[in-house]
């Protein structure tokens, strides 16, 4: 099959729509993950999702159902228990290990699980069905809608919780809202890059954006653009050159962060020299 034939096959088309939706949601939510220094929570929710997916398969359900239930549950738990950002590390850690333990149990109970386990851990974007695409797109659009509507209060509660509370915002409610958004984004991102590589779309583009600009709206835009570029180019490389798509996406997203840091260093040096 030639490249153009490959690109027009239905599974590549499905993958294209799915990565587009997921990358946009992950870039936007990722900015707040980086701003709130909650990368560990994002990491934990992905792993909790693994237990959920394993449990769903054991019960004969679609993995995405288990992912949604477990990720949302963990998100709300972390949101309530760690509303003040200081306590969140311990809450996240305990949630993470408890869920991983459950995951191990579910796998041991279910024989013939190796294939499904692999796709949850590392993603299997080229296997998504049309129904999956619809669900992923709907969830991602929902996340984007809520983020755009609650952008200012989320930002306020993230950078200065005390003042935000004084102005009438509920910090606990904002924390819960954010964890719910993070949980749903994680679920859709797992469809593409898997539990272990969720960070590539959620954290790397946003971290690069935060290095490049100090204007929050610009940062959200840059994060979404970088995530989208990593996802599209990664998908294309996977089809054209071969190798897992999740590898390519991870490599590209991480490189964007590395390049941002290098660019920032040369810029700082340049400014210093011009001041001297």
């Amino acid at each position, binding site marked *: 099959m030639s490249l153009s034939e490959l690109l027009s096959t239905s599974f590549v088309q499905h993958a294209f729509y799915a990565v587009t939706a997921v990358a946009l949601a992950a870039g936007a939510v990722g900015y707040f993950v980086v701003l709130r220094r909650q990368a560990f929570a994002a990491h934990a929710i992905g792993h909790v999702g693994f237990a959920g997916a394993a449990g769903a398969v054991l019960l004969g359900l679609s993995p995405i159902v288990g992912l949604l239930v477990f990720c949302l549950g963990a998100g709300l738990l972390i949101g309530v228990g760690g509303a003040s950002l200081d306590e969140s590390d311990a809450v996240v850690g305990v949630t993470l290990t408890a869920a991983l333990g459950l995951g191990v149990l579910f796998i041991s109970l279910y024989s013939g699980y190796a294939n499904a386990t692999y796709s949850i851990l590392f993603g299997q974007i080229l296997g998504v069905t049309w129904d999956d695409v619809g669900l992923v797109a709907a969830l991602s659009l929902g996340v984007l809608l809520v983020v755009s509507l609650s952008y200012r209060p989320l930002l306020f509660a993230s950078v200065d919780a005390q*003042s*935000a509370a*004084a102005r*009438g915002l509920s910090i606990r409610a904002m924390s819960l809202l954010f964890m719910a958004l993070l949980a749903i984004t994680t679920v859709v991102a797992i469809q593409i890059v898997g539990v272990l590589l969720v960070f590539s779309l959620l954290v790397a583009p946003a971290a690069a954006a935060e290095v490049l*600009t100090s*204007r929050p709206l610009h940062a959200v835009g840059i994060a979404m653009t970088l995530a989208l570029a990593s996802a599209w180019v990664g998908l294309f490389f996977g089809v054209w050159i071969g190798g897992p798509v999740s590898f390519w996406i991870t490599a590209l997203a991480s490189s964007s962060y590395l390049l941002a840091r290098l660019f920032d260093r040369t810029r700082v040096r340049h400014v210093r020299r011009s001041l001297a």
Partner: protein
Amino acid sequence: MRDGAVSLGGRTIWRRATFSVEPGTITAVLGPNASGKSTLLNLILGLVPLSEGTLRVFDQTPRRGNRRVGYMAQSRAADSTSTLTGRDYVGLGFDGPRFGWGRDKAKREVIRRALALTGTTSFGDQPLHSLSGGQRQRIALAHATVFSPDLLLLDEPLAALDLAAQAEIVDLINLVRDTTGAAIIVVAHDLNPLASIVNQVLWIARRQVRSGSVDEVVNEAVLSELYGHPIEIIVTPRGRRVIVGLEEEFAHPHPHPHPMGHVHDEEAHQHLSEVYEEEIT
């Protein structure tokens, strides 16, 4: 406030608080750590209820999100690492709590005025982490005054600042009072740097809140009770009064012979690190 008392988690923080705050005046709130100074601000903000007594803010019961009350929090943890610009942070003071897509056209002008008032226009577009402590406090004041509040609450605005930056912020607080006519309540653990601009002092000691003028508070007995530690007031040759803490040994003298036969230099026993020269008029 009349006969106010507050308890958190079943423990009484303080009681029998009666005071009022007039427009265009500055009130300092003094007291040891964890004596309930910030709690007083939280009451006014409507974040904590009174357990006894009444509190009226502009003739209403306190409510959260009242725009007539400006608030500058004590430790904005994100500050020193924040990549946000000062202008964006001040903007959050304007429409930060609002959900939705709409943009308020007045925002740009309101921010411009707040930056101009606090003298932060020149560095308003730099990220907060690149600013000095004093510059960040100025930005925080711009954030708190964005609605030109009639009552401005400042929680430890001088904490962790060097002497020059403290003097700068004190001048700015005075300027804000003069230009806006707001009533300002400043929580502080040290009266020295503020004494020249303060009209009223509230002090919390032994779970009671009392009020008085600076002259009534700057009194060795009152201050020693307030801090639970012996205090001495020194009058400098220029007529300034300076509050210093004493070491226990010196506060309760018990003569004992020195091995070398020297007499202790009294000056050496004072915590001179706590000393600031301040004019009290």
